[in-house]
C-alpha cells in the first residue's frame, strides 16, 4: 500500500467513523444519558431514511422545498413522534428493570418494520443528493471523492460539538446529566423529571432520524437497513463509555479505522475485528474508554 493509497484509506476511515458517530448519536442520548436500552434505535434510523425518500415529493410540491426543507420537516415530525412515543411507552418504564425496556423496544422494532412495509412497501429506493453538493473532488489519479460525504462529515462534527456543548455548558445539559445519575434527587429539587425525560427522548429520536435523512443519499433506502446498524451503534456507545459524548466520538473513529484497514489488510478476519476490539477494550477498561460527560 503506497503512501497516497494509505492517505485515502485514512480519509475513508475518518469518514466512516464520523458517519458511525452520526448514526449512533441518537443512541448516546437515549441509551447513554437516559440509560434506556433502546433496541429500536435502528428503526429510528430507518425511519429517517424512509422519511427522506417519502417526504421529498410532498415537501417539493407543497412549498417547493428541497432536500434541506425536507430535512427540517422530517426532524420536526420526529420530535413530535419522540414526544408521543416517550409519553405512551416509556414514561412508566424508568422505575422498572432494564429488561422490560428491552422487551418494549423489541416490540417497537417489529411494529416499525411492518408499518414501513404497509406504508411504503418493500422495494429498494434512493434519495437524490442535494444539487449543490453532488459534485466530487479528484483524489489521487484514479479516484474522485464525493463532496456530499465531506458535507456529512462536517455535519457530524458540528453535531458532536453541539451535543457536547449543550451537555457540558448549558443548564438544560446539566439538568439532564443530573437526571440520569440520580432521578430522585433531581425530582426533589423541583425539576420536572417527566418533562425532562420526554425532551431527551424526543431529542434522541430526532437526532437518529436526522442521521437517517442525512445519510440516506449515501446509504440508500431498503427494508431491514435499521437492523444492520443496531449492533454497531451499541458497540460505539459502549466502547466510548456509556453517557460520554466525547467517548462515543472517539470510539466511532477507532471503529472506522479498524473496520477500514481490517477489510484491506486482514480480509479473512474482517468480520470479527470490530468485536475483538470491543472485547479487548471492555476487558481492559470494564466501563469504556471515557467516563460520562
Amino acid at each position: 500500500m503506497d503512501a497516497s493509497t494509505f492517505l485515502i484509506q485514512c480519509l475513508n476511515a475518518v469518514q466512516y467513523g464520523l458517519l458511525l458517530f452520526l448514526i449512533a448519536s441518537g443512541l448516546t442520548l437515549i441509551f447513554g444519558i437516559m440509560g434506556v436500552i433502546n433496541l429500536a434505535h435502528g428503526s429510528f434510523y430507518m425511519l429517517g431514511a424512509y422519511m427522506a425518500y417519502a417526504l421529498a415529493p410532498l415537501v417539493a410540491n407543497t412549498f417547493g422545498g428541497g432536500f434541506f426543507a425536507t430535512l427540517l420537516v422530517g426532524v420536526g415530525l420526529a420530535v413530535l413522534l419522540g414526544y408521543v412515543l416517550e409519553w405512551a411507552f416509556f414514561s412508566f418504564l424508568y422505575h422498572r428493570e432494564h429488561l422490560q425496556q428491552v422487551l418494549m423496544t423489541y416490540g417497537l422494532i417489529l411494529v416499525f418494520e411492518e408499518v414501513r412495509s404497509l406504508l411504503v412497501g418493500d422495494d429498494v429506493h434512493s434519495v437524490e443528493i442535494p444539487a449543490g453538493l453532488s459534485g466530487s473532488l479528484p483524489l489521487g489519479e484514479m479516484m474522485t471523492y464525493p463532496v456530499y460525504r465531506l458535507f456529512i462529515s462536517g455535519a457530524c462534527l458540528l453535531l458532536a460539538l453541539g451535543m457536547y456543548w449543550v451537555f457540558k455548558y448549558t443548564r438544560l445539559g446539566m439538568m439532564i446529566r443530573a437526571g440520569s445519575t440520580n432521578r430522585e434527587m433531581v425530582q426533589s429539587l423541583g425539576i420536572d423529571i417527566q418533562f425532562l425525560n420526554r425532551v431527551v427522548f424526543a431529542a434522541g429520536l430526532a437526532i437518529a432520524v436526522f442521521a437517517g435523512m442525512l445519510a440516506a443519499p449515501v446509504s440508500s433506502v431498503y427494508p431491514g437497513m435499521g437492523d444492520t446498524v443496531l449492533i454497531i451503534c451499541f458497540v460505539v456507545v459502549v466502547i466510548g463509555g456509556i453517557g460520554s459524548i466525547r467517548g462515543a466520538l472517539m470510539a466511532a473513529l477507532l471503529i472506522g479505522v479498524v473496520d477500514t484497514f481490517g477489510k484491506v489488510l486482514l480480509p479473512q478476519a474482517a468480520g470479527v475485528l470490530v468485536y475483538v476490539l470491543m472485547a479487548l477494550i471492555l476487558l481492559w477498561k470494564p466501563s469504556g474508554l471515557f467516563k460520562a460527560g
Partner: protein
Amino acid sequence: MDKFRRTALALGASLLAAGALMAPMSAAHAQATAPTNAKLKVGLMLPYTGTFASLGNAIENGFRLYVTEQGGKLSGREVEFVKVDDESDPSKATDNVNKLVKRDNVDVLVGTVHSGVAMAMAKVAKETNTLLIVPNAGADAVTGAMCAPNIFRSSFSNWQPGYAMGEVLAKKGVKRVATITWKYAAGDEAVRGFKEAFEKGGGTVVKELNLPFPNVEFQALLTDIAATKPDAVFTFFAGGGAVKFVKDYAAAGLKKSIPLYGSGFLTDGTLDAQGDAAEGLFTTLHYADSLSVPKDKSFRLNYAKTFKLQPDVYAVQGYDAAQILAIGLKATNGDVSKKAEFAAAVEAAKIDSPRGAFTLSKAHNPVQDIYLRQVEAKENKMVGIATKALNDPARGCKM
C-alpha cells in the same frame, strides 16, 4: 379455601391453560388421498418480510399469472395456494417446510429466495419425497450434491451468470480483473464460475476482494481496487447492497476508468434506485428487457395488466416454475405421486419461457441462454448472447 380445594382448583386451571395452548396443534388432519380431480395444493414458501420481500412477491405474482392464464386449473385440478413466510431465516426453514408438507399435505413445494433456506427445503423434500420447484435460490448444491428426481429449479445456478461473464471478458481480450463480493455462498459461487471461464479464456484474476455479509461500507475496498488498477472489475451483489455498491463505485470516480461488470442481480429490480450511476453497465443474466422473444411480449403485457407493474427476472422464474409443474402434471394427468413419469416428462420438455425456450439438465437445472445486457435509460437492454444454452456442471450430483 382449604388446602384440598385450592390444589384441585390449581391442577384443573393449569391443565386447562396448558391444554388450550396445545389445541391448535392437535387437529389431526385426515390424510387426503389425491384422486386426480381433487384440489391441487401448492405450498408457496417465500420471503414475505425482510430484505427479500419484494422478490417473494414477484415470484408469487409470476406463478399466479400462469395459473390464471390456464383458467385456475392445471390438468383438470383446481389450484389452491398455501402460503408460508420463510423470513429468509434458515434456522426456521425446516419447521416452515414441515408446516406445508406434514400439516397442509401440499402436493408441490415452491420456494425460495435465500439459499440457506433452500438447502433446508431440499433436505426435507428429499426425505419426504415431496415435489420441490426452486424459483430462485442459486446455490449450486440444490442441483449438485443435493440433486434428486423430485427437485427442480426454474431459475439458475450461481455458477451460470458468473461463467458467462467470464467468457465475455475473455473474448473481449481483458487480461487483469479484480473481483469483489460479500463473503457468502452466493458470492463465492458466482466468482468461482467467473474465474473458471475467464482463466480458461486466458485472463487472470489479480485480486479477489470480499467483505463480511451484510456490511455495506465499500470505500476501503474501492480504494484498494483503484490501487491495484485492474483492467476491469467483476462483482456479485443484490438488493440494497447492489444499489449502494453501484452508486459508491460511480461516486468514487472508478466508473470512467475501470469498467464494472457483474451478474445480472447487480442491476435487476434496482435500476430506478441506482439512477444514472448504473448507466452503461454490462451484466449477464438469463433474462433481459427488450427481448425479441414473442412469449416475453405476451407475458409482460399480461403481467402489467394484472399487477400494474413491470415484471422482472423473479416474476419470470415464478412463471416458469408454474410451467414446469404444468408439464409434469400433464404427463401424469394430475397425479404428483408418479415421480418418475413427472421427472421424465419435464426432462424431455422444452419450456416456452419469456426468457426464451430452455430445457432442464439431467440435474434439473435450466440449460439456458445467458444474455449480455447493458443498462440504457433504466432498462437492462439485451445486447447479445454471452453463452448459448449454458449447462451447469452439477458437480457432486449422483442421480
